């Protein structure tokens, strides 16, 4: 049953133009900045691009676009309406859609973060292989968390317009006292950026996992009817 429910969001991600355009555009931007950093000989090139471009800009917008593609540009509940019409439980259809979006965003996040760590590698950065691996982990965690965050946003509004509000909220709250509630602050902490939450890396990892789980649960619950 789960595999059957996964077919639709998976097909939206793999066959739709939107997902490829989003992934291509933001990946190219990240790699372009990484190439520039390397060309300028930045000693902390990888750190600089990962925090300033990937964590702050590319990963949130990449996840925003991929979640939109996975739900077909609608609200999360209406995105599964055609499955519900064949007898699927609405919450199950939503949960599987969130899972597929999270896996897609995690994979894309890991690829972009690892690639940038290698391309923008500077003299003062850690060893390339280890840095790429660590960056891939953080990229995957951040991508997955953002997917769940935007999925919850997509449960608000007739056409899922709440997703855009959650994007703005992440930007606004991510640097304030409310940062602990957003993926942005935790992701930047993990990438080595300034911490708005004053949490350790390990705590930020746990917080991201917890945030992703909470958002996914709330989103699926909101789609029960």
């Amino acid at each position, binding site marked *: 049953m789960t595999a059957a*429910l996964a077919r639709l969001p998976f097909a939206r991600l793999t066959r739709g133009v939107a997902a490829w355009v989003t992934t291509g555009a933001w990946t190219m931007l990240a790699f372009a900045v990484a190439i520039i950093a390397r060309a300028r000989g930045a000693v902390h090139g990888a750190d600089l691009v990962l925090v300033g471009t990937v964590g702050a800009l590319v990963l949130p917008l990449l996840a925003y676009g991929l979640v939109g593609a996975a739900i077909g540009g609608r609200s999360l509940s209406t995105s599964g309406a055609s499955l519900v019409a064949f007898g699927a439980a609405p919450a199950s259809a939503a949960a599987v859609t969130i899972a597929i979006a999270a896996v897609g965003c995690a994979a894309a996040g890991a690829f972009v973060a690892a690639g940038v760590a290698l391309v923008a590698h500077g003299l003062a950065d850690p060893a390339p292989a280890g840095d790429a691996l660590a960056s891939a982990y953080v990229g995957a965690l951040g991508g997955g968390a953002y997917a769940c965050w935007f999925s919850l946003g997509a449960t608000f509004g007739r056409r899922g317009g709440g997703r855009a509000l959650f994007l703005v909220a992440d930007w606004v709250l991510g640097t304030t006292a409310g940062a602990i509630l957003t993926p942005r602050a935790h992701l930047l902490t993990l990438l080595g950026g300034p911490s708005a939450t004053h949490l350790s890396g390990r705590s930020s990892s746990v917080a991201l996992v917890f945030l992703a789980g909470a958002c996914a649960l709330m989103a699926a619950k909101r789609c029960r009817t």
Partner: protein
Amino acid sequence: MIDGTNGASIAIDSLVARAGRTVLTRVSLSWGSGTHAILGAREDGGPLLMATLAGRVVPRSGAVRVLGEAARSPGARRQVAHIPIEASLPDALRVDEVLALATTLRGEPTQDHAARLAMLGLEALVDRPVRSLLPGEVRAVALAEALTSARVRVVLLEEPFVTMDARAIGRLPQLLRDRAEQGAVVIVATASVGDASDLAQDHVLLRRGTLVRRGGAQDLLAGFWQDGNNARLRVVLRDEDDGRALAAALARQPAVVAIERLAGALCARGRDAEALARAAGHAAVEAGVDVAELRFDPPSLDEARARTPLLQTETRPS
């Protein structure tokens, strides 16, 4: 409670529901297997009632039981096919993948996809992406899935002949009847009195969200046909050029009080339907023209309401 069946498969008790501006007010009725029509305009609540039966709208109060289960239960959902005007299929898949997915979700044995579609003459669509289908094709594919499913026991079809693929329209009435004879509950919601009387054995009339009356097609229309010059006979010609000659011959028939020229046809109006049919036959012989089809045009819902006392009477459930 208006109950026309014993051992009902669908039972609605004091249902109150709302979607946008459309409301249903304390609707109580039941249906068993067979073909049934909900007659009324969209704003009268037919589509809302169907959405409630399909578990897509949560009732504000009252009970809706489908096949012995709550309408929103997974067990009921799997056995209900709801085809609204704006039907949707899983958009990123091909038609054959949609049918395979539906088979899995409904928990039924796999069938040949092309054969399922062939029932409505849609086999050419089997490998088309859903995104490339016209709205009428989407509805027809959804209907083919419903009519060929081994699991579906309730078919809810909104406006059967509107936004429907032309290949499916001709086969639709018989297939709905066949499905009903196999034990399914087939419910159509329509604003067309003609479609309702053609497709369904009995009718419920909704008006502004209230159940007005239940009855057979003839009950609903009897008053209309008896009142004034309401009989309208459409004479479809084999040769469009014969229209002038036939119109002249019809004008000489006493039973005909008015004639209207249409594309490839004439519409004769009179007081008595039988006399009108005889007059058309005489006129065709007199003019020496070939007639392809004679058909009585049903009244529109507004006409029927305006002229039929039965349709103006509202019997609110107590």
